[in-house]
């Protein structure tokens, strides 16, 4: 996968797409942009293919049928069916000798199906801004749980701390209405990042600014008291999220309906299964449109039907354009379905930041 080709005679060509995510019926303008080279010196052959299989060489026939040799300028591509397209432009010299090709991925959604939000322009309003955020934990080499131990150690000058950098100079900007993914292996600092964004942790260095209301789904059941009934917990959790009382009164039935737990409302939460708790927590957090929804591995607890329902709800919120979604998941396909941009954090360092397909592709190749 390469979107830039370095030419032998010096200079390079970069493939520009007017959009990387469209619906069936929309058009995409494909433009090869040259740097330090003359566009008129080349010929182009445009090829597209659905859902890969390039490696197996199953695309040969599409070249003949759908390839469009174009002398110059850009090419308008109007896909007829939904799917994941690879757009390839073969660059040839005037004699028709192949110099190489440049490729880009393009997601085409069905007419009514969910389409992940477009990558916003640079001047769109900011929802979350992480500016050079670092998080350092002092891990006490010994745990002092009593004054006596502490003072003895202090007197002996044995108070040593091991520094642990959970996040190291992370910077990114999430625009309003974006669906932003965070990926990374276990213990790489994703949840720490989310906690900083949620305002639970303060970064050791750097700044974070968040505009708007936050519905954090960092760990399900936070703020639930297992002894209280589900109904009482809905009010308690609603209060902690900052909801108005009359708002909860009004939307109580919506929450119950979404969680599909009618008839269990007067049961103490300790008798609930973890999946049922997850349903309630998700229903409360998404009953209205928060400005920022933080989803951290929450969907994995529920059964597959509820997971689908949650995904649908998240997509609804994304499509409303008002909600900024921050998603952490080990299910990369979920990230690919929902997010427009992804940040890959590995062992506290920012490994990659960019459009979903690019980052996920790279992350996948790490796993193998």
């Amino acid at each position, binding site marked *: 996968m390469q979107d830039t080709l370095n030419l032998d005679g010096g200079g390079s060509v970069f493939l520009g797409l007017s959009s990387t995510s469209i619906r069936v019926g929309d058009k995409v303008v494909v433009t090869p942009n040259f740097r330090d080279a003359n566009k008129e010196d080349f010929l182009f052959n445009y090829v597209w293919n659905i859902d890969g299989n390039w490696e197996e060489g199953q695309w040969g026939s599409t070249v003949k049928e759908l390839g469009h040799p174009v002398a110059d300028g850009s090419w308008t591509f109007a896909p007829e069916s939904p799917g994941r397209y690879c757009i390839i432009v073969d660059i040839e010299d005037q004699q028709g000798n192949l110099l190489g090709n440049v490729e880009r991925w393009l997601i085409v959604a069905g007419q009514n199906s969910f389409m992940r939000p477009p990558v916003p322009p640079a001047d769109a309003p900011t929802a979350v801004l992480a500016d050079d955020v670092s998080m350092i934990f*002092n891990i006490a080499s010994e745990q002092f749980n009593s*004054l006596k131990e502490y003072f003895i150690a202090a007197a002996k000058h044995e108070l040593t701390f091991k520094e642990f950098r959970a996040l190291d100079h992370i910077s990114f900007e999430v625009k309003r209405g974006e669906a932003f993914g965070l990926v990374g292996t276990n213990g790489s600092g994703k949840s720490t990042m989310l906690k900083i964004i949620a305002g*639970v942790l303060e970064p050791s260095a750097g700044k974070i600014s968040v505009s708007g209301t936050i519905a954090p789904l960092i760990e399900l059941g936070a703020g639930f008291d297992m002894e*209280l009934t589900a109904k009482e917990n809905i009010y308690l959790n609603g209060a*902690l999220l900052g*909801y*108005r009382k009359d708002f909860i009164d009004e939307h109580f039935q919506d929450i119950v309906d979404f969680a599909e737990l009618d008839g269990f409302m007067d049961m103490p939460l300790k008798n609930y299964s973890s999946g049922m708790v997850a349903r309630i927590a998700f229903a409360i957090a*998404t*009953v209205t449109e928060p400005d920022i929804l933080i989803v951290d591995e929450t969907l994995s607890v529920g059964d597959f039907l509820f997971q689908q329902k949650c995904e649908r709800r998240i997509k609804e919120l994304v499509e*409303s354009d008002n909600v900024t979604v921050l998603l952490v998941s080990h299910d990369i396909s979920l990230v690919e379905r929902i997010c427009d941009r992804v940040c890959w954090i590995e062992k506290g360092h920012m490994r990659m930041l960019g459009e979903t397909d690019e980052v996920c592709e790279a992350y996948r190749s790490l796993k193998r």
Partner: protein
Amino acid sequence: MASNTEPAEKDAALAAQEASAPATPVHTTSARDAWYPAGKRDLFILRELVTKDFKLKYRRSVLGVIWSVLNPLLMMIVMSLVFSFFLRYDNIEHYPLYLIVANITWQVFSDSTNAGMMSIIDAAPLLKKVRVKKFVFPVEKVLFSLVNFLFSLIAVFVVMLWEGVAPTPMMLLAPLCIILLMFFCVGLSLFLSALAVFFRDLVHLWSVLLMAWMYATPLFWPVSMIEQVPYAFVRTLMYVNPMYNFVTFMRDTVVYATMPPSSVVLSCVVWAAVSLALGYWVFRANERRFILFI
């Protein structure tokens, strides 16, 4: 034939379902007014937390909230029997009332500081995940002890009937004492909850301290005994003792229907202010680091 119509029917049913779907109120999607403005949400949180504590305290007990009235009453009866017969304190006028007024005042103090001290540690799972103002937890414990106090006032009323003490206008000053006591407890709870995060030893130490403090305060023994303490230093300490002042304030207004001495009122005000200032300062200075220790 049948196999041909079936899918068509299904499609029709699906189409009907889809058509009716938008009509059902699934979720409101344009509720800008769902949230309290940042400053106002704490009140609702406090209310919900007090409700939670209240429900949990009396859940699955047959008499429920009646225990809030019964408990101080029974305690008073036991203590008044013990101290009247064994220690001969029954020369105190209206001894049962003398006892119960001091006891419920002390109870507010010990309940709220005990629970307040643990409040941040107990709220750890929540504080790690949701952004909430941390001061609400110690403050909530003090408010909850106030709720219990209000119920136990019924017990005081019962004892007043029994003792034949008529209510007087002077009692209207008692709420002032309670408000000052609330401030005193809030300050101390903030202070203790912040310290307890860093040094758990305090939890064990505090119960011993409370016991010593209780015996040093004239709850069941006569106030006049302070004069008999041989050391002037200890006597001063006992008069300065904030709980002595709060208890005296309550007794003078409720039991004896007299204006408490101005030194007592002044002490209550000063203690409330000092405690609040200290608690606020220590809490604010350390609350950012709580998350790293809980």
